[in-house]
């Protein structure tokens, strides 16, 4: 098994001519958690989406276990996604599907022959794991944004992924929800999952991250163990660190 499952190699993405990611190269170690931090618009979410194969860079390459995601066939891409989970910043639940269907679809995508009985069982188990007492037949619009974020987390993790992408997971969450979410993420970390986090939350990154990558204007300005980066007196880093919540 490759120790570095995901590599960003000289990745550039531009919007309207402006480089949102500018020649970024990064490696994510298996079984480790990495927090990508930076101010709003620094490119944190883009790094996660590139690494997860949800968007493709204009220049450079993203490798998953040594294979370029851009050149993967449909089957290989599906298999890769079945091993990863992505928690979106704005929940991104499928609005025209019920909460139950939102959780069922990743399971069906991985195993189309799964019985309805097994499917319902897994969905109920998933809701119970975060003590979420919601009617699975409800549509996302019928619940609060914090609850949507929690359901979105369940969708990302229902297939027990090896690699978990968490894009500003704590936004819209209340204190109790945040604590519950962090506890669940720690369970994944303890189980050996590779976790990649985009956040500007100091407590979140401090509690979960083995390593921190600091971005500014689409470029990496620092990288290293959490304590080392956070205690840095580098003048280029101080404004970014000050912005952390």
């Amino acid at each position, binding site marked *: 098994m490759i120790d570095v499952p995901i590599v960003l190699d000289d990745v550039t993405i531009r919007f309207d001519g402006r480089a949102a990611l500018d020649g970024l190269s990064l490696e994510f170690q298996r079984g480790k958690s990495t927090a990508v931090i930076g101010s709003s618009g620094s490119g944190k979410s883009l790094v996660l989406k590139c690494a997860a194969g949800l968007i493709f860079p204009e220049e450079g390459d993203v490798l998953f276990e040594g294979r370029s995601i851009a050149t993967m066939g449909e089957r290989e891409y599906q298999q*890769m996604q079945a091993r990863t*989970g992505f928690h*979106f910043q704005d929940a*991104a639940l499928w609005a*025209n599907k019920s909460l139950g269907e939102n959780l069922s*679809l*990743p399971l069906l995508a991985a195993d189309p022959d799964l019985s309805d009985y097994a499917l319902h069982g897994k969905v109920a188990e998933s809701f119970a794991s975060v003590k979420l007492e919601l009617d699975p037949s409800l549509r996302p619009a019928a619940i609060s944004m914090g609850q949507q974020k929690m359901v979105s987390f369940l969708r990302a993790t229902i297939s027990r992924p090896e690699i978990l992408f968490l894009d500003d997971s704590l936004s819209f969450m209340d204190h109790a929800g945040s604590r519950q979410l962090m506890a669940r993420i720690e369970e994944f970390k303890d189980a050996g999952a590779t976790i990649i986090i985009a956040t500007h939350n100091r407590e979140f990154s401090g509690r979960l991250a083995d390593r921190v990558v600091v971005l500014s204007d689409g470029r990496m300005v620092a990288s290293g163990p959490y304590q080392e980066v956070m205690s840095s007196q580098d003048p280029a880093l101080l404004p970014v660190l000050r912005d952390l919540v």
Partner: protein
Amino acid sequence: MVETFGRHIRQSLGQLSYAAGFQLFLFKETFNFLGKRRIGLRVLILQILFTGVEALSIISLLSLGIGAVIIIQGAQLPDFLLGEQLYRILIIVIARELGPLLTAFVIIARSGSAITTELGNMVVSHEMEAYLSVGIHPVSQLGVPRLIGMSISMFLLTVYSNVFGLLGSLTVSSIITRVRLADHLSALFANFYLVDIVASIAKSFVFGIIIAATSVYYGFSVSGAITEVPVKTIRSIGVSIVLCVIADGIIILLTMLVTA
């Protein structure tokens, strides 16, 4: 000036090649749909329900009305309602031309625009990325069932529209000429040729595919801003109408070649 023109041509060619690649992928995935039907079946059923079943009332009203108007206006011409020619005119105008085209325009305005808006909004709210994140290609999950559903619905609605259009014409004609409706109907069936049926069916499927493929393409071409959604929807409606009219002309030419 030359540089701007060159850049514009390069961008247009790039967009055209992207659109061609998108359509190829959409059609390739359509052939693969059977293997993934458990996931996409619900979307397909909902599309047939929305495009086909829910449009029945407006199609019947329009077809009945237009069928009746053709007779009322035609009755002002001498000998229009007399002789076998009436039935050929009705079959050519309603079954081969107006039925498919009118149905296509209703479907473009009603369902094509809805598809582009819905898909565009899904792009903006990152729901497409969410599909990718669970290993499902959104074009396969959302585009293909819409393409199949709309083609089936267009065919059924065109048949329905033809029936109502012809029924409206003959009912008004029987009131004016005092010829029994049953006699009108039997004369109409006697004047129906295979080419009329084939042309009507071909148009319904071709229009259905054009509308669905165009609406899906423009929905997916929204790149992230909510303000793009109405712009793409308007463009999708315009392009669908133009392509349907072009396809109509091509099918008419082919029909003429076959019958010549």
